[in-house]
């Protein structure tokens, strides 16, 4: 699966959790999910669980620790898919 396609699906999943829509409109790999998009940290787990369902992958507890930016999500999902 292409990185751009993964990123598009990641952003779609993030959309309902994002409080700063301007960050969403300009989102790129470096966009920080908690600090830039203002996603509630407690909701981050729901986001990652949605990744599991969307991409049919399993993500371990430890994997979440490395998720800070949109790019981190894309990298993690790409690794799991491969």
């Amino acid at each position, binding site marked *: 699966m292409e990185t751009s396609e993964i990123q598009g699906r990641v952003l779609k999943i993030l959309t309902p959790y994002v409080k700063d829509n301007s960050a969403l409109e300009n989102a790129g790999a470096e966009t920080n999910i908690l600090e830039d998009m203002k996603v509630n*940290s*407690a909701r981050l*787990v729901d986001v990652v669980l949605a990744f599991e369902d969307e991409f049919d992958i399993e993500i*371990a*507890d*430890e994997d*979440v620790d*490395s998720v*800070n930016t949109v790019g981190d999500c894309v990298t993690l999902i790409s690794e799991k898919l491969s």
Partner: protein
Amino acid sequence: MADATLLKPQERRALLRQRWLSRLLSPLWLPAFTAAMYAVMRWRIVGARALRREYARLRAGSDAPLLICANHLTMLDSFVISWALGGAGYYLRDFGGLAWNTPERRNFADSFWKRVLAYMLKCIPVTRGANRGEVALVLNKVAFLMSRGETAMIFPEGRRSRSGRVDRTNVAYGVGRLVSSLPGCRVLLVYARGEGQQDWSDTPARGERFHVTLRCIEPKSDARGLRGSLDVSRQIVTQIAEMEEAWFDDRQ
């Protein structure tokens, strides 16, 4: 999972040093804080003797890790709950029974003396909304301490209940992650509320009378990974919410 083995040797040593210093000075600060709650704030714990007997029994009855999970209404809940579960004399004998806390760093970051106080009071500060790596480090530290017989206290809602009632939708999954990482971990659920506490606040009112109920569980989940941790967290919050319902039913 929270993994104490991931801590660096210097991080372990720092925690043990903090415990040692806190223990060393505890004959000073434990009676002082107890006296402040009793004589200055005039707080009272209804049925304190039975609560403390039960907590001492749980501590003495097993070597399995014990995590205290409570509802959260004021910034001083951890003081009240610790006092409800043991007096100064008890904690001087069983210092591991005095729970470690993970308070919000911003609540005391503005003052050197507040930071010193937090250090003495067995606190491991955490920044709410911090990157997951920092949160994981705190969980690893708590897991390390609990594996050495220390008790820890975490508020599974992650913040004070804004509605004044347990928020079942606001679940900190880190609690479940911590419990899942410690084999045989028991969770002591605590519901504590002052008679005059209508909703959330910074401090309980002077002269407040607290009613505290306890329930000990060993939550488990068939799910793995994140889902398992979240499932355990939800079990904990759900049971605390049930204890809250019972609390209000008893007072109708």
